[in-house]
């Protein structure tokens, strides 16, 4: 009796191991398949013209040669730059506040909570806020609204990673700096932040990677465009939105260009991801006190 029960539970366990392994294999197979398909189509569609030409012809007619996405690549880079200009300082300063200024003050708890929660707000809702606050008053889609929406997504992520990284800086650093006569702001700017520079930058890059692939917050803010203008008050193109427009287009020639756009987008994200890994690896190699 005992041996029989033993064998049954062994069989169940073996089945569970097989199931667990099968689940992993299935996930890897499906996801790798999807990724491979996307990359394969992208590699087949990419060309030098993709980076050097803007869309050509009538958007509603079937273009034999739809042109490239130079405008969208530049647009995405410009939007990321503008979003970082606002989102990065705001995120880092909030992180500094949470780690260096707030003990258990009334502001710190709610801010921490809101930062965590904002990471889960559907990005399309952020786009709607950008529309109501920065598009309706101006009267049209513009680059500022798009960048602000992205900054809104970046800042909370950066704030929380910065806070966590600053907390890892030993208190002896702060005490030493203060004992030498430095003020609190000097201590933060010259000692604490530099000591946590690597990991903080990691948080910034993670936030960048997150917003670089966002489409939904740009739909009602930047609005998308078929050309890029230096006037930031005009509707502004982005890679994700151009890919969306072309991916849902009835014309195969435009869908082809969209695959190239997806490839460029993924290449951008992979670059950021690898940079993060390199950064983390270098930081660890320097054997920081953790």
């Amino acid at each position, binding site marked *: 009796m005992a041996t029989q029960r033993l064998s049954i539970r*062994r069989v169940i*366990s073996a089945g*569970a191991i097989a199931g*667990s392994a099968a*689940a*992993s294999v299935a*996930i890897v197979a499906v*996801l*790798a398949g*999807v*990724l491979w398909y*996307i990359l394969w*189509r992208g590699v087949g569609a990419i060309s030098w013209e993709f980076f050097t030409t803007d869309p050509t012809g009538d958007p509603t007619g079937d273009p034999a040669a739809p042109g490239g996405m130079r405008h969208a690549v530049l647009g995405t880079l410009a939007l990321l730059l503008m979003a970082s200009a606002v989102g990065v300082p*705001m*995120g880092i300063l*909030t992180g500094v*506040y*949470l780690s260096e*200024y707030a003990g258990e003050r009334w502001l710190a708890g*709610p*801010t921490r909570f*809101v930062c*965590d*929660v*904002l*990471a*889960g*707000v*559907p990005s*399309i*809702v*952020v786009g709607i806020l950008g529309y*109501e606050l920065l598009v309706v008053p101006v009267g049209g889609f513009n680059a500022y609204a798009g960048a602000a929406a992205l900054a809104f997504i970046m*800042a*909370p*992520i950066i*704030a*929380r990673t910065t806070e966590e990284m600053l907390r890892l800086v030993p208190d002896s650093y702060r005490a030493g700096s203060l004992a030498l006569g430095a003020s*609190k702001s*000097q201590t933060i700017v010259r000692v604490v932040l530099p000591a946590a520079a690597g990991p903080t930058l990691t948080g910034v890059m*993670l936030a960048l*990677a997150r917003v670089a*692939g966002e489409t*939904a917050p740009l*739909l*009602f803010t930047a609005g998308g465009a078929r050309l890029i203008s230096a006037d930031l008050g005009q509707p502004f193109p982005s890679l*994700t939105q151009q*890919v*969306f427009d072309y*991916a*849902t287009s009835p014309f195969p020639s435009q*869908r082809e260009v*969209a*695959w190239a756009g*997806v490839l460029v*987008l*993924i290449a951008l*994200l*992979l670059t950021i*991801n690898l940079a993060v890994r390199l950064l983390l690896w270098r930081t660890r190699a320097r054997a920081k006190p953790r």
Partner: protein
Amino acid sequence: MPPSKARRSGGDRALGLLARGSAVTILGLLVALLATLVTAGAPAAARFGASFLTETEWRPNTLERPRLDARGEVVITGGEVEIEEVPPRFGALPAIWGTAVSSGIALLIAVPLSLGAALFVVRIAPRLRVAGPLSFMIEFLAAIPSIAYGFWGLAVLTPWLQTVAYPAMERLAGGTWVAGWVFRTRLADGTEIPVGLTGKDMLCGGLVLAIMVIPIVTAVARDVLRSVPRGQLEGTLALGATWWQSSWGMMRYARAGLFGAVMLGLARAAGETMAVTMVIGNNMQVAASPLAPAQTMASLLANEFKEASDQLHQSALLLVALILLVMSLALNVTARSLVVGGSSRTAAAH
């Protein structure tokens, strides 16, 4: 040295103000978000009340139709058919239904697979020395933009479902009650329509969402399982538990965190916009069959917000956005309170 002292305290004050100002700004943004949606959604809420959540008709335009009398016959006055105007109506139930069904399908597929894979990564992969690459792959896949998954769904999954899977299913089910339920569906107004014709439907949306939430659920579940104390695992093994029994013990021990991982997956699935918009068919209807085209709250916003010129239409859309926001906040708050410690960072990164 008063000047230097003054400069120092000036710098201190400036940095303190900047830091506090940033924190207040972030807080203010959430308040602004809620305030904007509440005030803008108020007209629709006042007009439709609770029926906004239960009505199935979403019609932004004014309808003109022949007036019918009590017996259901067309009213004719002076030789002319009398026309009545039906004002626009907004009921969000189709979008809520579409969100629930597509997210439900996604979780049904993603959760067992993700938990299995998380157990594999924590307990088996280290022995095979594949934990690192596997983890990297899962994390990288979580970073792929949703538009890429949506495009794949549109280009590969939709035609496959339409031309291969559904015909095969129909042949298998052929004439049984299953076929009657899956391939024909009755709408709220009583009409029966054939479904499963385009491949763009709730099932397709659910499948694409499953692929998108698997990485995040696996990553968080992995972190949660890793945080189970070694003593717990070794204790069960010392008592003679098999691999599965000790794994079951681990999962029971970490059940709150695992539930949190599932909630994060649900929040991601329910708030996902672009990929779903591309494959769900964008049709505001409540249908029982998962093969019917539908609309989620997020896809409804993506499709109609830009074109909504009418005040009431916009207000109704913003009310939908508010429902979506409150729902995601509730899911995230619950999930975050369940997933504690080290895994909260993994969650924040997605």
